[in-house]
């Protein structure tokens, strides 16, 4: 993901989404990040695995390396194709995989290093000021003792050179989508300047493309040799994204050539429309490109058949191949090592009812290793597999990591500030530009500074220890470090403060590397002056810092799941599996939800049988309390402390709430439904098929109640259910005439099998233009415009099956939403906190969503998402108490006028007006809900609100410290 530029459908930057997660993993006390390791063997069984791992020799000690890059600058081995950039640029023999790499430490490629291959050079060793290079490093085997395993090796990009007709590898201006992603990316080799590759290489003046073509399904949906039969699920969306972002780089013509556009996910349909309507991307539906030819001027001519079977040629500057997703490199070997099976396509084998489980007990799967999928789905599944994996750890009763012991924090209230300063050279990163000794001397002249030191690497263990020691010995009560960025290093220094018995909020940082020495490399005087200013500002704020403690919030260790369908029950079982009580609230008299209407099989098992088994499991589970035939009246409270108030008058305390309320089938009014016995929905039709009904002329009409003027979205599941039923009809009666009238067939992923099977069985597909009106029906025949024929056709009908969509059941959702103040999307489904970062969370902490309540989806997707929401729920209800972040807002009641401006501006409902005894109102901040943005503070007209850690007086002190002195302070 870090190789991507932006991600659909929000077009937010990949790095912004991923980098904080990587840093979190790296710094988490319960997570050991083992990069450059390889699994060799998995012994034992679920609950007690012994995993043998090969720790590959890195030749750089990650504990000593600071990622400064001095070694890389001195390495003489150039021209090694950089795999991270897909060979678009070269790297050295010693390298850091990429700018945001975690851990950001160097590694030596032993196959090309001159020292390791020929015992010559040794430059990197000499260049490293920290002595982190160790040429005698050896591979090592380690054994991990674990209860469960999650397999997440991802996917491989399909090798586009197999598609010889598109000329990849021969024509320089034909690139794969992932290479194009790097070309677009601001952190890519071209810094986001999109140029025509051929001209760039030849130094020609013509650089920016004026026409780009995107060819879809490159490597997917084909029986051709080396191609994949399945749909790669994400390419329609990513190509549209690339075309949109490219348009933002400059005006040009962009064309996407595809068979069907598969925008089945949340907000996807609207995204495609935006691409087409607002960005002017030209969509060529039903167009399959036969080949690409290079012209003498290196432009490319595309030959394709348009949707009316006309041969067309058009010339472009760049052709981007929307390459599909293949199983990860070495998947077979990996599966063998783990002892798990792969499916026919080489992906991890799972089942519809156990989408996160591999064939070996205790080993779970997440992400694209199970099937091609997008980021939001992968993230939700990742949460889900962690819930599954967690259940095994609970069973084994692993001792939780012992919390670290810290000395008692010293009392600093009312004491004169005594500040210790450390100024870092960061090797030569700061020191070669900023005159560090001068900055240190300057620091000594500033108020409250007791000691000021320079340090080669402030982040090194020796310096961190000296900070802790100085806090004790010099009786320091504030610490300021002038070095790199607090975004990466603040936690480290805060930890050193705690080790010295100082509250971690009494630390401040001046960023004199990333925001000074690195960006003013040729202005040493001015950069030194700036470093002094930044340090002075940091000191001014530090003197006013106060110790903060996050307030403790008690937690009720129980969950509420609203909705007793497949999603709700699976989530409840996952929560109960870790030992926590769950209340399931189902408004109907029995559990089961909408799946009770299903009459089909999945993976050879009747859904109804699965459902019966699931209900039995839930009813047998001692930790699950089922409330049927009741509704939720209200859910007052906040994270960890909700009250579930039911219509039967009973209250239950719970720590978190999951909305698994599903959706509703769309009730058609079209085609005389309900009056004409020949017209039925899929559910009606399935029930009849079960009773042996075998019609001769069957027509399915897709997108009834979806993708129209009033319901804009795609209901995701209807194409597959039509195909499933069409296949059933054909299997029972091969002579039946079965026609599916559609706009696009959206059988993404392995569901493409259904499309292929139906086609083989002779099911006819009639595609009508998206812009056309729905097909007509006169009681005998369906009349539809066939885009391929370019004319209307009439089809006789014995059974007209309406592929009705999924309606959001908005009213029910809104009622619940109001109780916990969570948003609903414009389409009427619940709106999660962040599509990628927090796909099953709401912005309101402690409230979660899963299943069709979130968006229409298939059963396996609901089950996986249910586990995801269960996992998120467990992060709250498994704790005895929650510690809120110290940086929250607070109210000085003596200044508060009760105007309420702050209430309206808080997006988290953390601020409220509370009536006082004298009838007046005062604002009150709930620290459990406050996220510490400080928005309310800035809104307060009377200065009654304050943000701890960013108090007005602290920020004003920084401003004054900046401007009250001349530049550089002298």
């Amino acid at each position, binding site marked *: 993901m870090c190789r991507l530029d932006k991600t659909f459908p929000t077009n937010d930057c990949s*790095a912004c989404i991923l980098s904080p997660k990587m840093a979190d993993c790296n710094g988490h006390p319960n997570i050991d990040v083992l990069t450059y390791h390889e699994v060799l063997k998995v012994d034992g069984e679920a609950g007690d695995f012994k995993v043998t791992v090969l720790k590959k020799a890195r030749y750089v000690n990650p504990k000593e390396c600071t990622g400064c890059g001095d070694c890389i600058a001195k390495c003489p081995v150039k021209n090694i194709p950089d795999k991270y950039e897909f060979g678009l640029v070269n790297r050295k023999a010693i390298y850091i995989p990429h700018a945001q790499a975690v851990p950001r430490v160097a590694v030596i490629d032993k196959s090309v290093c001159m020292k390791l291959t020929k015992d010559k050079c040794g430059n990197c060793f000499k260049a490293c000021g920290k002595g982190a290079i160790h040429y005698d490093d050896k591979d090592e085997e380690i054994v991990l003792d674990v209860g469960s395993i999650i397999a997440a090796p991802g996917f491989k990009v399909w090798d586009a050179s197999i598609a010889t007709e598109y000329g990849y590898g021969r024509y320089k201006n034909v690139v794969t989508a992932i290479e194009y992603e790097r070309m677009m990316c601001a952190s890519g080799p071209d810094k986001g300047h999109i140029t025509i590759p051929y001209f760039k290489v030849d130094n020609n003046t013509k650089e920016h493309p004026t026409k780009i073509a995107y060819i879809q399904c490159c490597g997917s949906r084909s029986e051709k040799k080396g191609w994949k039969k399945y749909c790669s699920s994400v390419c329609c969306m990513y190509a549209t994204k690339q075309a949109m972002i490219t348009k933002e780089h400059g005006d040009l013509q962009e064309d996407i050539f595809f068979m069907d556009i598969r925008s089945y996910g949340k907000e996807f349909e609207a995204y495609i429309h935006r691409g087409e309507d607002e960005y002017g991307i030209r969509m060529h539906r039903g167009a399959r490109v036969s080949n690409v030819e290079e012209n003498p001027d290196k432009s490319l001519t595309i030959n394709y058949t348009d949707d009316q079977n006309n041969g067309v040629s058009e010339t472009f500057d760049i052709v981007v191949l929307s390459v599909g997703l293949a199983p990860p490199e070495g998947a077979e070997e990996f599966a063998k090592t783990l002892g798990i099976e792969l499916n026919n396509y080489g992906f991890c084998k799972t089942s519809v009812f156990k989408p996160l489980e591999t064939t070996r007990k205790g080993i779970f799967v997440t992400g694209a290793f199970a099937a091609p999928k997008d980021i939001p789905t992968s993230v939700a599944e990742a949460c889900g597999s962690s819930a599954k994996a967690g259940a095994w750890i609970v069973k084994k009763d692993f001792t939780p990591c012992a919390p670290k012991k810290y000395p008692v924090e010293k009392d600093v209230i009312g004491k004169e500030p005594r500040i210790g300063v450390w100024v870092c050279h960061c090797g030569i990163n700061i020191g070669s530009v900023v005159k560090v000794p001068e900055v240190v001397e300057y620091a000594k002249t500033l108020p409250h500074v007791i000691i000021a030191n320079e340090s080669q690497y402030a982040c090194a263990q020796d310096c961190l220890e000296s900070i802790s020691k100085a806090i004790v010995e010099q009786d320091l009560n504030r610490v300021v470090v002038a070095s790199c960025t607090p*975004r990466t290093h603040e936690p480290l220094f805060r930890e050193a403060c705690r080790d010295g018995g100082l509250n971690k909020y009494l630390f401040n940082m001046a960023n004199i590397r990333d925001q000074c020495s690195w960006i003013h490399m040729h202005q040493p005087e001015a950069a030194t002056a700036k470093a002094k200013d930044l340090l002075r*500002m940091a000191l001014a704020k530090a003197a006013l810092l106060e110790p903060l403690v996050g307030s403790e919030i008690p937690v009720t260790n129980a969950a509420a799941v609203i909705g007793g369908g497949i999603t709700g029950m699976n989530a409840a079982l996952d929560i109960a599996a870790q030992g926590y009580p769950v209340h399931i609230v189902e408004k109907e008299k029995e559990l089961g939800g909408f799946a009770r209407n299903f009459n089909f099989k999945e993976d050879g098992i009747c859904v109804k049988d699965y459902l019966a088994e699931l209900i039995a499991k839930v009813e047998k589970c001692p930790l699950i309390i089922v409330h049927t035939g009741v509704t939720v009246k209200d859910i007052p409270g906040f994270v960890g402390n909700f009250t579930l108030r039911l219509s039967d008058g009973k209250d239950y305390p719970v720590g978190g709430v999951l909305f698994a309320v599903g959706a509703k089938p769309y009730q058609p009014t079209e085609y005389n439904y309900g009056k004409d016995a020949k017209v039925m929905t899929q559910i009606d039709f399935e029930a009849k098929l079960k009773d042996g009904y075998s019609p001769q002329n069957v027509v399915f009409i897709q997108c009834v109640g979806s993708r129209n003027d009033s319901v804009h979205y795609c209901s995701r599941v209807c194409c597959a259910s039509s195909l499933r039923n069409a296949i059933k009809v054909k299997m029972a009666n091969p002579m039946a005439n079965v026609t599916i009238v559609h706009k696009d067939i959206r059988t993404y992923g392995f569901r493409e099998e259904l499309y292929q099977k139906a086609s083989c069985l002779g099911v006819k597909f009639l595609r009508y233009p998206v812009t056309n009106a729905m097909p007509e029906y006169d009681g005998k025949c369906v009349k539809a415009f066939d885009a391929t024929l370019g004319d209307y056709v009439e089809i006789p009908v014995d059974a007209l099956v309406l592929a009705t969509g999924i309606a959001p059941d908005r009213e029910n959702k809104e009622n619940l939403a109001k109780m916990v103040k969570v948003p609903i999307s414009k389409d009427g489904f619940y709106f999660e906190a962040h599509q990628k970062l927090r796909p099953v969370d709401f912005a309101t902490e402690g409230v979660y969503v899963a299943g069709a309540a979130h968006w229409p989806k298939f059963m396996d997707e609901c089950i996986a998402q249910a586990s995801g929401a269960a996992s998120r729920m467990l992060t709250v209800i498994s704790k005895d108490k929650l510690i809120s972040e110290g940086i929250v807002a607070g109210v000085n009641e003596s200044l508060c006028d009760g105007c309420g401006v702050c209430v309206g501006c808080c*997006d988290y409902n953390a601020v409220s007006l509370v009536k006082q005894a004298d009838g007046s109102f005062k604002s009150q901040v709930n620290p459990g809900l406050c996220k510490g943005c*400080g928005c309310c503070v*800035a809104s307060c007209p009377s200065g009654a609100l304050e943000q701890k850690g960013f108090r*007005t007086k602290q920020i004003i002190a920084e401003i*004054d410290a*900046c401007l009250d002195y001349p530049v550089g302070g002298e």
Partner: protein
Amino acid sequence: MADFEPRIVTFCCNWCSYAGADGAGVARLQMPTNFRIIRTMCSARVDPEFILRAFSKGADGVMVLGCHPGDCHYIGGNYRARRRIALLRLVLEQYGFDPKRLKLEWVSASEGEKFQKTVNEFVDTIKKLGPTPVKKEEN
């Protein structure tokens, strides 16, 4: 006037624009030294009082940088910052203060280059406008 070096106070939100400024550093994008960054958690924390304080203390320009619309770490903080700055610019103008001295821009965590461009352009703008009128009166 030729050697006028403006003093610029820049407020960056923790999640996007401060990270973008760091990104400019990681990519070694060079730019003038005239600005000093003050980090807040969200652009919505930037109280108009801070901006007025900076101007009253002689800042030649103030920049407020936040997450792109729709990308705010805190749901909608940047929209509120946008409204506040728009109003403040009106007020500044009414007092005869060139509103161009106050700039609001969106810089995402990956936009080191945009950060550089924003700084370069703003420094140019302020150089053209000349020293702050607050200073002139003092002299």
